[in-house]
């Protein structure tokens, strides 16, 4: 009898632990069945949608709760610069982009806890109304802990291993149809303080 109880208990403990643990691992690693990669940015075809798969829904709950579906807004996120190095608040970056086929866009920096970095700078984002594009529609901004005279600046101070999100509100159908290939801003690492990666 004791042997049978131990058998059932061990099956339940190990099974639930492995099942729950693997689920948390998938959620924390950003697994999305409908994931679409675009250079270093990623999004999902089903964020907010009623036909979202359970993995996308779980990820949305973790990092994008109350996100709109892609007919209204498309969200891309990235955690790495163009060379594939994770973002760090010890480094200086330049984000460069061109015209985006959308009614309005913004780029926002988030700390690893998925909230705005606590730094008192009040420069957490840039948007279509705050940057001044050139004649070709090109624009750029500095992402760094210090403004250092830059006109367009996103503060990464206290952002740690931060991430960036770009929001495309009322996107043209061309974006939704080409989520993986539409031209999105590039982010180049210019320098880092010594010893930082």
């Amino acid at each position, binding site marked *: 009898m004791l042997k049978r109880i131990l058998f059932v208990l061990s099956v339940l403990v190990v*099974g639930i632990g492995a*099942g729950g643990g693997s689920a948390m691992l998938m959620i924390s690693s950003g697994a999305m069945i409908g994931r679409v990669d675009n250079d270093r940015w990623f999004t999902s075809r089903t964020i907010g949608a009623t036909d979202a798969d359970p993995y996308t*829904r779980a990820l949305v*709950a973790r990092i994008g*709760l109350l996100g709109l*579906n892609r007919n209204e807004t498309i969200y891309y996120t990235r955690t790495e610069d163009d060379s594939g190095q994770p973002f760090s608040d010890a480094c200086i970056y330049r984000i460069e982009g061109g015209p985006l086929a959308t009614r309005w866009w913004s780029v926002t920096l988030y700390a690893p806890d998925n*909230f705005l970095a606590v730094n008192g700078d009040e420069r957490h984002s840039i948007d279509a*109304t705050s940057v001044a594009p050139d004649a070709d529609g090109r624009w750029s901004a500095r992402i760094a802990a210090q403004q250092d005279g830059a006109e367009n600046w996103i503060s990464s101070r206290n952002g740690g291993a931060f991430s960036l999100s770009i929001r495309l509100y009322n996107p043209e159908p061309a974006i939704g149809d080409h989520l993986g290939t539409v031209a999105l801003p590039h982010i180049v690492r210019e320098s880092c303080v010594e010893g930082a990666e």
Partner: protein
Amino acid sequence: MRSWVVWTISTLVVAALAHVGFMFMYPNVVMSAAMARMSAQGENEWRHVARVTEASRVVVRPSPDLAYSACVYNLASGPVAISVSPWGDYMSLSLFAANTDNYYTLNDRSMPAEGVTVILRRPDQELTEAERGSAFAVVDSPSQRGVALIRRLAPTMERFEQADAARRLEQCAQLR
């Protein structure tokens, strides 16, 4: 069959069930916690969120360029009416079910310039002709509780203050 084979198969089955169950429960648990935070002052009423700053900690990844108003609705006692004031720029009313799905969205380009009223109900809740006639849209909620969220583009303090004035005229309340 050897006992270790039975143990392994049983454990794998339990693990698979736990994995699937956890995945399905997780969004509901997170949404439920968020609704509890948003409705601390009550359900079926707008909570006009202060300008997003680094101190904003209710919902992850908020946009500092938008003015948010949230209403945790509860249809247990009947339909809920939501009114939306006009805004001279991007704005949207979006409805979210208890499992996080964004099942309905209306933006300023798809609503009359003077604003709208939307009635939210469960599919089995009847409306009178007059009630139907008073609404721009009647929307069936897939869950008894959920969240109505209004976003207004307001990237500057001046625009935020204008948005704040506009949203004070809005309603999220039981229809009757």
